[in-house]
């Protein structure tokens, strides 16, 4: 049992932290690519050089903490799924993942249907759909590879809650390639859940740290806010819950390569725990700040929106809790 980062992963973390302090905006993506971050998310078989749970967890925690809004997660899931199906994407190609559907909470195949090898219907909140070289699409029980320039494909882009660009994907008898049953792609999808959860954990720690700083600086009734027990105890409870979320991410990252039944229990537990803590932190961080926490100008706002987005990505806490309770696989 060893919870330490390996030397390689420590170097990766240092390098990533350096990039995140030196680059912002448009310059960030090329810097991340140059430092090999996207490749670190994939195994050698998939065209990368790492792809371990530890690497995924540390990279997305740093990105989540820094508030980076880049469609790295869909690119990672799609690249891993394509590679598993023997259809490797080009190195560094932009890839998207179309999973959520309108008209349902988190079911698949409600707004999209399959006829032969053609898809009809709608997917929503597809991060990185604009300019993607290929899109990984879920239907009721299968995964598909879709070319964005295929006939019958319309992409309607818009900004999303977490700061990324997303789109609705509208399909009318659009030709696609079936990769296989969702149930057989639990590995790539579990990595997606880990990435979303680690991103949320990064945002959780950033929001809690910001809140603590505020409680130490802001004075009312002649005292810093942290001196008031009602607030101090809520802060302590948040600190306890942050450790629960951190452990849930650790558990999933350490069980990505476990047998699928065990891995899926950790997928579900991770979504339940991190989803619950993300929402708790979003609510309490605003409450503990007071009015300033609701302003667009203050740094907390972006964190809150990213926490809310992470809560629903790839199934929310309730959805995964039900499957955990029923002993069902995480993805089927």
């Amino acid at each position: 049992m060893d919870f330490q980062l390996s030397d390689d992963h420590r170097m990766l973390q240092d390098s990533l932290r350096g990039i995140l302090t030196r680059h912002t905006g448009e310059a960030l993506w090329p810097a991340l690519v140059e430092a090999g971050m996207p490749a670190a998310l994939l195994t050698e078989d998939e065209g990368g050089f790492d792809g371990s749970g530890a690497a995924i967890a540390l990279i997305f925690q740093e990105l989540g903490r820094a508030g980076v809004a880049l469609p790295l997660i869909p690119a990672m899931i799609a690249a891993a799924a394509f590679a598993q199906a023997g259809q490797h994407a080009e190195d560094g190609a932009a890839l998207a993942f179309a999973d959520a559907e309108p008209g349902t909470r988190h079911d698949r195949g409600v707004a999209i249907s399959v006829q032969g090898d053609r898809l009809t219907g709608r997917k929503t909140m597809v991060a990185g759909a604009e300019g993607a070289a290929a899109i990984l699409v879920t239907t009721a029980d299968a995964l598909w590879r879709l070319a964005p320039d295929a006939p019958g494909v319309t992409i309607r882009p818009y900004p999303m809650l977490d700061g990324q660009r997303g789109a609705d994907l509208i399909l009318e008898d659009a030709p696609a390639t079936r990769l296989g049953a969702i149930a057989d792609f639990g590995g790539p999808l579990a990595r997606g859940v880990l990435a979303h959860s680690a991103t949320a954990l990064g945002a959780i720690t950033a929001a809690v740290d910001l809140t603590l700083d505020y409680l130490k600086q802001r004075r009312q009734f002649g005292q810093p806010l942290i001196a008031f027990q009602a607030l101090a105890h809520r802060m302590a409870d948040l600190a306890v819950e942050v450790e629960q979320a951190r452990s849930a991410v650790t558990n999933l990252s350490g069980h990505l390569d476990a047998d699928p039944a065990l891995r899926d229990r950790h997928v579900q537990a991770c979504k339940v725990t991190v989803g619950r803590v993300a929402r708790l932190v979003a609510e309490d961080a605003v409450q503990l700040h007071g009015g300033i926490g609701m302003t667009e100008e203050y740094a907390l706002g972006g964190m809150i929106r990213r926490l809310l987005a992470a809560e629903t990505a790839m199934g929310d806490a309730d959805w995964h809790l039900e499957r955990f309770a029923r002993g069902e696989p995480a993805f089927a």
Partner: protein
Amino acid sequence: MDMRFTPDELAFRDEVRAFLKAELDPALARKVRLHHELTKAEMEGWHAKLQAKGWLAGNWPTEFGGAGWTPIQRHIFEEESARAHAPRIVPFGIAMLGPVLQKFGSKDQQDHWLPRILNGDDWWCQGYSEPGAGSDLAGLRCAALRDGDHYVVTGQKTWTTLGQHANMIFCLVRTSTEGKKQEGISFLLIDMDSPGVTVRPIVLLDGTAEVNEVWFDEVRVPVANLVGEENQGWTYAKYLLTHERTNIAGVGFATAALDNLQRVARAQVHRGQPLSQDPLFAAQLAEVEIELMAMSTTNLRMLSLAAQGQAPGIESSMLKIKGTQIRQRLDVLTRRAYGGQASALPTLGNEGPDDAEEALSATATWLNNRKLSIYGGSNEIQRSIIAGALAKG
């Protein structure tokens, strides 16, 4: 990062399991599972079996006769023991006083008292809380006045767990009323058979009397029984509390309680189906199981830090809060699973319905485990400790 146990750790787990299978009497395990009070002889008998194996003091270094286990080994032992419903090791000598004597005691004190803890010559209890000093422990008043080569101790201690079995008590006593209240406290070892010591049981909600009041009326204690320096007792007390809290998460106990709850939920009927298949109950059960999965890893992460020599700080406070929340939640669900039968009165003993013994134990456990969020520094005190550290950090 590697979350798997090493081959050595797995081999150790197998050895613990084999030991429990060979040495733990099923009748005793049943009593533990049903939360029946154990006799002194039963507890001493289990200690003796562990000591014969060299496992009684897993937390002590080998130089003092302990097993010198790593934190991970201790975790494995505690979890396996709890799941097998082995009696818990009475903590006062092994987990509390032992480490204090090893760190702050004189060579003579170590040579005299430590072997007696291991071989069962002494049964220790803890004299910390007083009627007027609970969460505000440093406000304690039990006085020790120097008289030649003795201290004369007068005052009262309370919540003294298993004090009815003890022949020795380690006490925080007031040796000075000057300066800060923390600076006038000393750590004294007192023979319970001394003239002037009175022990009276306190009956609790679950009908047991595991805690006591202890009075000292001009009890003469040799100065040789002072641990460390006079008026430095608060430092030793805090050190002891830190050690008391290293297993405060109670992962093993929670895991055993979860095993039990799942068994009960499969057996109880709801709408013609096992209760475990009821969506509402299953969701509540899943929630607490998921909480335990995370807390168990939080515990291992903290143990792993401890193994690298980093002293437990607010981490133990965090584990205390979350660990006790989980155990109390499990108690709630277990009681609820039994339905109406859980209204049997635990204090009735065998007078209830013949088949209500298990339901009765669920209620007794609920009642008894209210203590979890109160003792060892209440959960509110732990929150203040955490917040205090965060405010400074």
